[in-house]
């Protein structure tokens, strides 16, 4: 069971700016043969109270900082789940096709 943390919901007026997934297309030409680009997404937004998709550590950390300990690193909006991406690559023996893990952000949370 998680510690108590109110979640952002339809009635939360700050819902537009809270930590969440945003599309991001990047070039892959320097690291793989193909594809040339991919949408890997990125996480953006506030991790102030109420913390979206926080875990117990982030709730405790946020509460500790809220008590005046402003020198601590505050919770940060980061990917917490990923998808793999199938790519064509180049190895000693020539062309290969492989699955690269954790390439595409799928879900964001405060950590």
């Amino acid at each position: 069971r998680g510690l108590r943390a109110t979640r952002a919901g339809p009635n939360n007026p700050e819902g537009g700016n809270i930590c969440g997934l945003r599309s991001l297309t990047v070039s892959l030409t320097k690291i793989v043969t193909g594809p040339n680009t991919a949408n890997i997404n990125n996480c953006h937004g506030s991790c102030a109270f109420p913390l979206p998709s926080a875990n117990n550590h982030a709730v405790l950390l946020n509460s500790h900082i809220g008590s005046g300990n402003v020198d601590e690193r505050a919770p940060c909006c980061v990917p917490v789940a990923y998808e793999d991406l199938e790519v064509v690559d180049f190895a000693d023996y020539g062309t290969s096709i492989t699955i690269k893990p954790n390439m595409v952000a799928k879900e964001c949370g405060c950590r």
Partner: protein
Amino acid sequence: FPQNRMCAFQVTSQTKRFATVGNVSGSVQLCENTTCCVGYYRVIDGQPKVDVLACDIVEKSCPDATCKAQKRFNGRQIKCVCNTDLCNSNITWTP
């Protein structure tokens, strides 16, 4: 109704996965889910050597009708992607 894309077909033992994305008949593949053909080559002593000719799996985009070479890994590999039947039989390449 739109016909499926036809691509030249050839693979290595490391790239058999390409055989799964369309029926293969000799050196031709009929694509199931893409309109793009691809070619991947190793460059050995300045000459391209085919590794893969097949229907596309990872590229997703193929704006050109002919298969224009794109260099990768400092020119040790080249690839091409195109959108017409058997367009990956010939690669447009300048060494």
